[in-house]
């Protein structure tokens, strides 16, 4: 065990030293060969959205699934075409993919002054496709399970339906019920949907081949919508007591009377809770994808350092990737679980009832 640790330490040190070397050599190398492997670009390209679903590259031939571009331009109206038409730096109807700048990698158009402007872009990008696919898959799975119950209601389920039953009832009984408390049935359908939506997208994100692999839950737009809906539900279902605790909390008068110090802090808290939800899921999934990609990039980075180094790094990268893969499976579940649990807890907290009514009355007299 100790020897293994020593070996690992040496290897890690070697990698870092070599990494520094490559960085130092980079500007020179870039001039020499245009196609220098860039880890940062490589990772960013994989975790961010794109207009085509790139699968692989055989020789010089790119293999990718074309996806439709749907764009509304204020200058020229609606445009619908396949993304392959503008992939190689071509221009179509005045639309092109910005090579760099503020809108790098996005479809832009040049207005009369020559400035790049962004049209209203609802293209079916890689993430949108993955989103539609996973939504459809989730609906199909859950409806299939529901249909199985409608067909034979009083039968104990086996196989996949039995597994889903265990899964659903576990979340329902052990997360939603205790966290929301009374009236949990009103919120259970939404919370269950959130759990399975996040879970299926996390899991599909771990599968490296076609319908999976998109970094969907590691995209801020997705987590933003999820957190926004939770925020709305929490505050719409907030009880009188919840609002009273925010606007007139049980603290000494000087903390709230002339300058509303505590109410302001509480008000900030109302927004930080869903914000934390959004950032937590986003950052966790993004980090997971980045680690796997970084480990894979290790293989390509070390190609220049000779076959011995490259081989050892490949083995190391492979082993670490397996380990991280297992961790990510766990994280996929844990993040969905935490998102659901915290949403449930926030809803439960927003539905507080005056638990110390008497004390308040005494204090007021």
């Amino acid at each position, binding site marked *: 065990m100790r020897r293994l640790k020593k070996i690992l330490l040496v290897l890690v040190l070697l990698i870092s030293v070599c990494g520094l070397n490559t960085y130092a050599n980079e500007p020179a190398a870039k001039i020499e060969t245009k196609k220098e492997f860039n880890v940062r670009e490589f990772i*960013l390209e994989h*975790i*961010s*959205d794109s207009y085509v679903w790139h699968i692989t590259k055989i020789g010089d031939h790119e293999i990718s699934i074309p996806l439709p571009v749907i764009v509304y331009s204020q200058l020229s109206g609606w445009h619908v075409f396949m993304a392959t038409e503008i992939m190689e730096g071509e221009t179509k109807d005045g639309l092109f993919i910005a090579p760099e700048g503020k809108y*790098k990698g996005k479809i832009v158009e040049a207005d009369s002054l020559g400035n790049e402007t962004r049209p*209203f*872009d*609802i*293209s*079916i*990008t890689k*993430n*949108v496709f993955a*989103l*539609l696919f996973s*939504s459809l898959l*989730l*609906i199909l799975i*859950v*409806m299939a*399970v*529901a249909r199985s*119950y*409608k067909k034979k*209601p*009083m039968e*104990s389920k086996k196989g996949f339906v039995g597994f*889903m*039953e265990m899964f*659903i*009832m576990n979340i*329902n009984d052990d997360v939603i019920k205790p966290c929301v408390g009374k009236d949990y049935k009103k919120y*259970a*359908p*939404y919370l*269950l*949907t959130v759990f*399975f*939506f996040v879970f299926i997208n996390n899991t599909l994100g771990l599968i490296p081949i076609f319908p999976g692999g998109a970094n969907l839950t590691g*995209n*801020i*737009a*997705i987590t*933003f*919508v*999820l957190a926004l*809906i939770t925020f709305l539900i929490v505050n719409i279902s907030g009880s009188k007591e919840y609002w009273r605790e925010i606007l007139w909390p049980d603290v000494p008068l000087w903390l709230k009377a002339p300058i509303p110090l505590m109410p302001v802090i509480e008000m900030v808290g109302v927004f930080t809770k869903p914000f934390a939800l959004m950032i937590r899921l986003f950052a966790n999934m*993004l980090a997971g994808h980045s680690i796997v990609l970084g480990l894979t990039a290790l293989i390509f980075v070390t190609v220049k350092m000779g076959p011995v180094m490259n081989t050892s790094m490949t083995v190391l990268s492979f082993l670490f990737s397996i380990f991280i893969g297992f961790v990510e499976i766990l994280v996929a579940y844990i993040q969905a679980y935490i998102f659901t649990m915290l949403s449930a807890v926030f809803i439960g907290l927003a539905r507080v009832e005056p638990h110390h009514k008497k004390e308040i009355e005494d204090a007021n007299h």
Partner: protein
Amino acid sequence: MSLLLPESGLLFWMILSFGTVVFILAKYGFPVIVKMVEDRKNYIDESLLIAKQAYEQMEKLKADGEAIVDQARREQVKILNDATKTRDLLINDAKEKAQLEGHKLIEEAKKQIMIEKEDAIRDIRRQVAELSVDIAEKVLRGKLEKKEEQMDMINRLLDEINISKS
């Protein structure tokens, strides 16, 4: 950084598709499943309760039956005991009666025998008396052949009577 800015297109699709997913699953998906599972759970609980009650009832019936059998057995033993007692009593009674009767018979027999005996004694006595009278007659006849002797005798007898009378 572009990673931290939500893309409007993705936002649009996310709201649309997640809205659809929530609408469909929260209406026709999860509530149906949860309700069915809970219904089934209640059904199983009820069935278990009913089974338990039935079992208890059966146990009670069994216990009742056993009690009845037990009682019957006790009754039987009691009846047998009574019968034995009655029999013994009857036999004893009969024995006593028989003894009594026997005694009576024996007494009667004894009495009869006594009577017979007395009769026989009386008879013998009479016969002896007759015989002795006869013999005395004969003796007297032999002795009182003479007149004085007869007179002596009469006198003596008279004296004797007198003596006994006075």
